[in-house]
């Protein structure tokens, strides 16, 4: 397995190049690029500029592990408004195009948002339809779309069996699961998601979560090993299903000072997960 971390973790005010230098120095193999979440990679970033980003990544001795985005929280593929939904589709298309240019084979998509206003049944149908529309484009680009499990925030696809059924309904090999082992909270157990969805996992986000928090003002998320995830069980499940891909760090910026230290600490924790010394 290989280690990666998002470029949206780079401390604010830092340049992309400086951030890459830190990522390399902390021991990561790759970087996850977040479309729309960082100044250097936006929807209007041209193909040439994306190529330039790839050169910078490679010059730093890294590769791009995958292309993610947080833009679908504002432009959901499940929106009732067809125009908003179309913008969501365009974002995924740009991720696919960018992934091809960046030389990676996976993108992360937050597939749908269940809200008080937009109920589950509508979200489910629209997401299946959107994935079926986008899958051929991803396949042509040699990319897989990983729908992320954002259980508590999305209120959608809350269990691994449900997610498996969703993937069966989409029925496209280029659509899978971008598993976030920190997003499951108290709705289940990450290791069971790994066991049930193993072959469909495109990438894995790693962070920890605290089951007794998150119901009020405190964030539920924390650094690896500080929360309630059963890391030995997760590691065993990864071995069981033969997952040998990327582990991508995605934490909240928790360090009140020395923000670069979070990169080193997280890299060391991921090393322990990979080596199984837990």
């Amino acid at each position, binding site marked *: 397995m290989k280690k990666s971390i998002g470029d949206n973790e780079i401390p604010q005010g830092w340049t992309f190049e400086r951030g890459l230098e830190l990522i390399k120095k902390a021991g990561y193999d790759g970087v996850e690029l977040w479309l729309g979440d960082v100044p250097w990679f936006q929807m209007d970033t041209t193909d040439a500029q994306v190529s330039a980003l790839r050169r910078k990544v490679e010059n730093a001795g890294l590769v791009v592990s995958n292309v993610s985005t947080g833009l679908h929280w504002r432009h959901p593929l499940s929106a*009732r408004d*067809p*125009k908003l*939904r179309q913008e969501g589709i365009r974002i995924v298309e740009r991720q696919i195009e960018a992934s091809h240019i960046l030389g990676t084979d996976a993108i992360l998509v937050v597939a749908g948002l269940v809200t008080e*206003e937009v109920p589950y049944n*509508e979200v489910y*149908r629209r997401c299946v*339809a959107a994935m079926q529309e986008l899958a051929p484009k991803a396949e042509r680009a040699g990319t897989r779309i990983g729908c992320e499990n954002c259980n508590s925030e999305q209120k959608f696809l809350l269990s691994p069996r449900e997610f498996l059924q969703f993937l069966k309904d989409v029925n496209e090999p280029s659509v899978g699961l971008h598993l976030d082992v920190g997003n499951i909270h108290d709705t289940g157990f990450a290791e069971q998601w790994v066991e049930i969805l193993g072959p469909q996992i495109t990438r894995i986000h790693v962070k920890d979560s605290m089951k007794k928090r998150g119901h009020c003002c405190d964030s539920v998320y924390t650094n690896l090993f500080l929360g309630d995830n059963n890391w030995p069980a997760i590691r065993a499940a990864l071995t069981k299903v033969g997952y040998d891909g990327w582990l991508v760090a995605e934490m909240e910026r928790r360090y009140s000072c020395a923000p670069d230290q979070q990169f080193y600490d997280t890299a060391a924790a991921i090393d322990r997960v990979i080596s199984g010394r837990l």
Partner: protein
Amino acid sequence: MTCVSAGSCACGLGGAARPALFEHREVAPRATGTVVLLRYSCALAESLYGYQMALLAAGKRFDALTHDFSAEDSAFTPSPGRLRRPPSPRRLRTSTFTSLIIAPVASLTDFDQVRWLRERIEQGATALVESGAAYLTPAEFQVQKSLMGSEFGITVMNPVKLWKRDGPFDGVPYVDFTWPSPARIRDFSHAVSLAADDAETIATQRGKVVGIKRRLGNGALIFLGSPVGPHLLTGDPEARRWFESFWERAIRS
């Protein structure tokens, strides 16, 4: 017209009692006739597909009147024909009697289309029309508003967004139907209030009239300010029951 389904037509009277809605009707009920789904005026494909799915699931025979008589739109995308030039009224005229017309989330911004609809209703058809106001530009909406007033005597208010992001949650803004059977169906984010003389209120949303039924000539117009079609697509049981009940009433008249 392009027939997209050839299921069995469940439109026989079978000796059933005449529905209350049409009790005052002078002409004899017509057991035969075509059912038309207006694709060309649809501003929200989901609603069209909802009715299509409901009709197909129930084995109903219907004709889908397309804008250019082309193949199906891809699912869940806005109807690309919405802003194209509409078909000529001559082309829309059919020799067979039209008994039911469904216009899902309709733009109704073209005089010829609206006049065609009115003529069919006056000849005895029942038309179920959903307002597409929430999906029109302000200019298009003004045209629709004007045509609905001049051709059908219906006042269409501006679409109102039902879900506010600020302030306390004040409940799901369900639409309460009273005809043809009581049903409580989810909103679809926006609703249009309606008013018309000699019209019967058939649906309200938080006290506002969002569904009316009005006789025109030998037929009837059912105009909805909040669409049902998208809920048919998601399999909402209340919406399906309502539509089944509507079908029975409309097709037997």
